């Protein structure tokens, strides 16, 4: 993700109004430069097609996605969980948007899918909570799944399910917010 070769110095001088960019060099290197240069230019040009960024993202994206899912599913026994994994999965879409243009990525993901995913995630979380109440337990009382439905390790799998739903909500919202801010207000031109 932090590939220094992706920060394109060639595209720097065309900043709007000929303003100088006075960021300390050592700080920009610690950030993910793949995400910096193309967007910074969007005031003048919406999208900079850079073969370096595209190639890097094409290689890195599957690994980041897998890492995000790993974090999400292994939250029970090691560091990680729904919030962390969801954010990392959301970052994959952000990376694709920056590398291949936000418009094409938005069409590929389909904005209404995000709304459905987020809605289902929130509804799923609530229904897990209410489901335990319906089965005679307290709110989010996972062991009820074991006594009423015979699920093995009910607490562990209940927590995993909730973590997964949190991951879906967070990933969906991160992606959605990215698209929404990129598109701007209705009637305005979209990036």
């Amino acid at each position, binding site marked *: 993700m932090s590939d220094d070769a992706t920060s394109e110095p060639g595209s720097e001088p065309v900043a709007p109004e000929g303003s100088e960019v006075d960021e*300390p060099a050592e700080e920009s290197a610690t950030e993910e430069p793949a995400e910096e240069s193309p967007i910074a230019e969007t005031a003048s040009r919406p999208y900079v097609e850079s073969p370096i960024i595209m190639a890097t993202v094409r290689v890195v994206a599957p690994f980041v996605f897998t890492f995000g899912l790993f974090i999400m599913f292994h939250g029970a026994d090691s560091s990680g969980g729904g919030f962390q994994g969801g954010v990392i999965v959301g970052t994959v879409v952000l990376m694709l948007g920056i590398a291949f243009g936000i418009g094409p990525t938005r069409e590929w993901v389909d904005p209404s899918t995000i709304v459905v995913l987020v809605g289902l995630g929130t509804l799923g979380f609530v229904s897990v909570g209410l489901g335990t109440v319906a089965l005679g337990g307290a709110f989010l009382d996972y062991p009820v799944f074991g006594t009423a439905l015979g699920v093995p390790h009910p607490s562990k799998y*209940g927590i995993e399910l909730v*973590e997964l739903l949190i991951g879906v909500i967070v990933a969906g919202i991160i992606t959605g917010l990215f698209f929404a*801010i990129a598109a701007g207000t209705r009637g305005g031109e979209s*990036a």
Partner: protein
Amino acid sequence: MSTLEFALVAFVLATGLATAVLRDVLGSIIAFAAYSLGIAVVWVVLQAPDVGLTEAAVGAGVTTVLFLLTIAKTVRPSGERTLERLDLPALGVAVALVAVLATTLGALPPVGGAETPVATSEVTSYYLENAYHEAGVENVVTAVLAAYRGFDTLGEAVVVYAAGVGVLVVFQREVFA
């Protein structure tokens, strides 16, 4: 404090200060991204890997991208000056706040001591002792997040959901497009 900690804290404070004083908003955003990365490492040093993971992804990744998108959609005011002009009233308020807070410093428990109220709290020992056989997971943070404080987490998830709805309302849209 070890040399690593000292260097980290110095880096965090320096980048935080750079964020405040840089005139160019782009420079400020990049300094903030570096700051977030630094503070993510601080979380790991303070034995909070879950928080560090989230901060690295959120602070250095997502937030930075959102800020950059915003200045791409709006303006990026810049002038010939590198640093922001000092705002004395604001500086006065900030210094007063720090001064007032610093008077409490002596009353706070030392960081890292085994006798701090948080470490000796009944809640802490209960979670650490019972998480495995009550919730069935080894990561106590996950156990507290999804089981013991599941209702709270539901609230947080709904807040995140509400943020999505809020942005859609602000932009008068029905989908994220």
